[in-house]
């Protein structure tokens, strides 16, 4: 497939705000999405991610701020002039038109003659391997096929930006994984900018060059998938990505780049820091669930070890290649250790057991914000 559009598909949002009546859906956002990248807007429902997408698409007008695509300020322009095409969550295929006429709709609106638009539509359907179904009606296609038709219908407009609103949410698990791969391959092939809204972390991690984690109309972190997953900026991002334990302590002192902290329950932490922390600072840090080791607690415990937390096993969940061990630790919302299954079954622990969970000081990652004991990321905001 040739690159469809040579114009730049860089998207720049400048001080973008959207209010619906009294509610502020998007709060003064600045973001640059590089040309040709796969960007995922990630966040719980109601965080403003879809509103941003719809503003880029031109289906929603910003209350204030600017949107640039390439060189152009596009606020006020219709979608076609922006060079964007949107794929709707439910695909919004026109139920009264055949697959071919759905794909040809854009050309029909532009007054392209019937023969020519059918030829082009057939060509596009060929690309998504649906040419044999071109005379079917949308209702007769499976979810995955409908999605491909929606893709073809969007791509025929020759966009420089493709906007996808929860494109995989209507599919079952198997198809979701398959279409996820196809989307990524398609983006590689076309080389245009994809902006993909999702509330599913693995989807964002798997697809995106750039993940934008949102909460309550604000961007918490915009970075590569690896960065977001490994070194989250805020307690919210750490929790939302679901692979981190967040803890808080007060700095007691520094020595050789190692910070010594005291936690709320008198637990001692050490962080091998690159950061200049000062004594007296309150700091939150995150440790990946799969970097935590668990041991049954010895009866006669000596002096409290460093970077070790004591708790009672709350639940055990076998996940195949690892075992998710939830530990009830006084003073923490949640604490989870993902133990490799081979390791776990050497000395299985059961709910109710007292355990010590420990980690190396190199594994602790200091967060930009102090944890305020924020709520469940899935709670409606």
């Amino acid at each position: 497939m040739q690159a469809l559009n040579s114009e730049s598909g860089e998207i720049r949002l400048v001080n973008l705000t959207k209010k619906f009546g009294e509610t502020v859906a998007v709060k003064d956002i600045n973001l640059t999405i590089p040309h040709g990248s796969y960007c995922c807007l990630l966040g719980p429902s109601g965080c403003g991610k879809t509103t941003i997408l719809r503003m880029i698409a031109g289906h929603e007008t910003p209350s204030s701020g600017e949107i640039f695509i390439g060189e152009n300020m596009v606020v006020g322009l219709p979608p076609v002039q922006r060079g964007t095409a949107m794929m709707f969550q439910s695909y919004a295929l026109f139920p009264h038109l055949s697959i071919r006429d759905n794909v040809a709709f854009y050309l029909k609106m532009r007054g392209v003659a019937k023969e020519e638009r059918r030829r082009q539509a057939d060509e596009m359907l060929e690309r998504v391997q649906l040419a044999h179904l071109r005379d079917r009606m949308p209702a007769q296609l499976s979810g995955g096929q409908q999605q491909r038709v929606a893709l073809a219908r969007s791509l025929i407009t020759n966009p420089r930006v493709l906007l996808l609103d929860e494109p995989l949410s209507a599919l079952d698990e198997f198809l979701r994984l398959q279409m996820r791969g196809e989307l990524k391959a398609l983006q590689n092939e076309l080389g245009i900018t994809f902006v993909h809204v999702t509330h599913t972390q693995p989807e964002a991690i798997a697809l995106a060059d750039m993940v934008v984690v949102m909460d309550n109309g604000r961007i918490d972190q915009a970075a590569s998938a690896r960065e977001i997953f490994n070194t989250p900026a805020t307690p919210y991002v750490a929790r939302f990505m679901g692979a981190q334990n967040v803890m808080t302590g007060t700095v007691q002192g520094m020595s050789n780049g190692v910070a010594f902290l005291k936690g709320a329950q008198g637990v001692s932490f050490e962080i091998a820091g690159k950061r200049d922390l000062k004594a007296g600072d309150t700091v939150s840090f995150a440790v990946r669930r799969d970097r935590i080791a668990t041991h049954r607690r010895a009866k006669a415990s000596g002096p409290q070890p460093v970077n070790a937390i004591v708790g009672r096993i709350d639940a055990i969940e076998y996940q195949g290649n690892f075992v998710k061990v939830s530990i009830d630790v006084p003073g923490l919302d949640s604490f989870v250790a993902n133990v490799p299954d081979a390791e776990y079954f050497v000395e299985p622990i059961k709910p109710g057991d007292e355990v010590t969970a420990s980690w190396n000081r190199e594994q602790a990652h200091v967060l930009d914000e102090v944890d305020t004991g924020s709520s469940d990321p899935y709670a409606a905001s």
Partner: protein
Amino acid sequence: MPSSLERRPWTFYVLATLMALFVLFLYGPMISVLILSFQGTSASLSFPLRDPSLIWFDELFNPTRVGDVPGAFSRSLPLAVIVMVLTVLISVTAGFGFRRRFGGAGALFYMAISSLIIPGLVLSIGILVTAQFLGISASWYGTALGAHLTWTLPFGLLIMFAILGRLSPSYEEAAFDLGASRWQSIKDVVVPIVFPGMIAVALFGFTLSYDEFPRSWLTVGTKNTLPLEIWTMTTNVTSPALYALGTTTTVISFLVIALALGSIILIQRRRSK
């Protein structure tokens, strides 16, 4: 499953009997009229049927003894068609208007719907009195047309609101996204999608108007519509021509319904092929 478990509960038989009685009550009289409209020259108004013939149908259209049936028909049919067209036009455009919430939308909606609960005869009197006051003479194409619209529009509005309310706005957005103008998105996307609903509205408009008696009663002026003509005939015609008339009008109603349903089925089939 063992057959003993498949025995139907006694409620089934009660409900089935009720349903049978209902159907009998619904279609029995109609079928009686249908049969008796083929009565022979004996001119008996009741069973049994003797020497079946078509003379009463002939009589209908050669009004020697009965009323002015062809004349009444020539008013009722165009009236029903005009009411149908206006109902569709107004209901659909109002439906579009109500898709976007505006101030007073609720009040306006209930005002439009409330004419459903005003008794037709009262409305008929009211329209006549108002028309006289304004110096307008009652006619089938004037006052009666208005009276019929007060009856058909609430139904049309309710149907269109239900259909357009369920129509996802993403269809129009998708059309806009693909470069359609507002007019193109209505013409090429929304109207085709809601077309079956528009046929339903048309059907209601036509049949409600074609059958309407109370709202026609005082508003048609000096020339009767068909339901009024039939009513007049029941008081002074004593021949099976009455039945023939009943059969003819019922057949016309059924034809209209069949036409409408047929076109809906045709569209659905085209969509699912």
